[in-house]
């Protein structure tokens, strides 16, 4: 059993469906791999600073995993027209956290601040990371969720991170073979934007709760 908190901006006009499907894909994997885990779904209604500021202090004395599926900027995660996690405002709340952010740009500043503020580890993108639509949406979500799933399966964070990059490369080659150079170039960009900060040696065993 482990403690998962998944923020997903399902009401987002352009990417709500993508974020919701990403969350569902991850929860499906959690339920299969480590049943009885605690999974707290933080949908758009609760993706706000007030919720984060009140809720996170109630859980951060123990190790937990926080996953974000929403828009992002260099120093913040955003939903509902505002930020809900921001470098200089509430990133210090995420002590004892493995923070997995599938948002654009947050690897530039927010990820570094989280690691500096005693989050165990951050994985995210330090550039714009396009999402693929239509028939390649599942491929895109598989790429995004690859490392967190590997981590859940028992690999260290660095092993999970490296296998995520390898999987991105396989997806790039797949799309290129399918005659989709623009989509392949988008995934190449996402792959090279991946960053990992903090302790890379942790495994899911360190996050088990009684």
């Amino acid at each position: 059993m482990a403690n998962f908190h998944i923020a997903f901006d399902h009401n987002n006009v352009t990417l709500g469906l993508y974020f919701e499907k990403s969350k569902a894909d991850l929860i499906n994997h959690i339920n299969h791999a480590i049943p009885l885990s605690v999974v707290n779904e933080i949908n758009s209604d609760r993706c706000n600073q007030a919720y984060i500021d009140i809720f996170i202090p109630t859980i951060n004395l123990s190790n937990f995993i926080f996953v974000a599926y929403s828009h992002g900027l260099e120093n913040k995660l955003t939903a509902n027209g505002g930020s809900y996690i921001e470098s200089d405002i509430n990133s210090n709340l995420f002590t004892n956290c493995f923070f997995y952010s599938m948002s654009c740009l947050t690897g530039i500043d927010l990820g570094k601040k989280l690691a500096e503020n005693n989050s165990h580890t951050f994985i995210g993108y330090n550039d714009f990371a396009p999402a693929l639509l239509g028939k390649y949406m599942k491929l895109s979500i598989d790429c995004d969720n690859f490392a967190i799933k590997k981590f859940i399966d028992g690999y260290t964070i660095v092993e999970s991170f490296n296998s995520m990059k390898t999987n991105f490369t396989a997806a790039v080659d797949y799309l290129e073979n399918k005659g989709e150079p623009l989509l392949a170039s988008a995934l190449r960009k996402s792959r090279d934007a991946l960053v990992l900060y903090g302790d890379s040696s942790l495994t899911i065993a360190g996050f088990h709760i009684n």
Partner: protein
Amino acid sequence: MKTTKIVVIHDDILEKDPLLVVLREEYGADNVILKKKSKEGLNYVLDNLSQKMVVILDLNFKAGEPSGVQVFEGIRKQTSLVYVIIWTASALEDINREDLKSMINNDALAFMSSTDDIEKIVSKVNSASHQLDIRIDSALEQWISLHPESEKQSPYILSRDGKSYSLNEILQEIRLKTPFGMETEKDILLLAIDMLSRGKKKIDG
């Protein structure tokens, strides 16, 4: 037959002008267009931005028509990917200094004199056409043209800052050299380098 459109905007030559005859032999009659009114010429170029195009532009037009420099600037407001060759009877020193600066700063490809040999002008056009062929936007244009129109207009890729782009919009962004367009060009080059470095692609020859 080459697929580049050659648009000659000039009020002082005829359809039977030797330059047009030679260009039509090289590029096909349908691909060489003469516009004697500068406004019509500008409109034609702006209405056909999705095509590879080289413009041969006179500088001096009759009163009431936009000048060659105005046409040039009108094109550049919309795209930096149309090659423009200035073809004028004016001596370089007779051209207004500010006009000259505008043309140089906005990448006029060449200045040709109306006394230059046709061969020299055609050679410059061929060189411009070749450059268009090897540009990323041109390769993309060919690739995009293989898709059905409905697919070209549908959302194709979504930036996680919430902007979606169809294939047609991506091409337009590249042609206008917007930040997204330039980033897309760079990403395609980086993809090519990535695949070459991993041995997934080989350069012919």
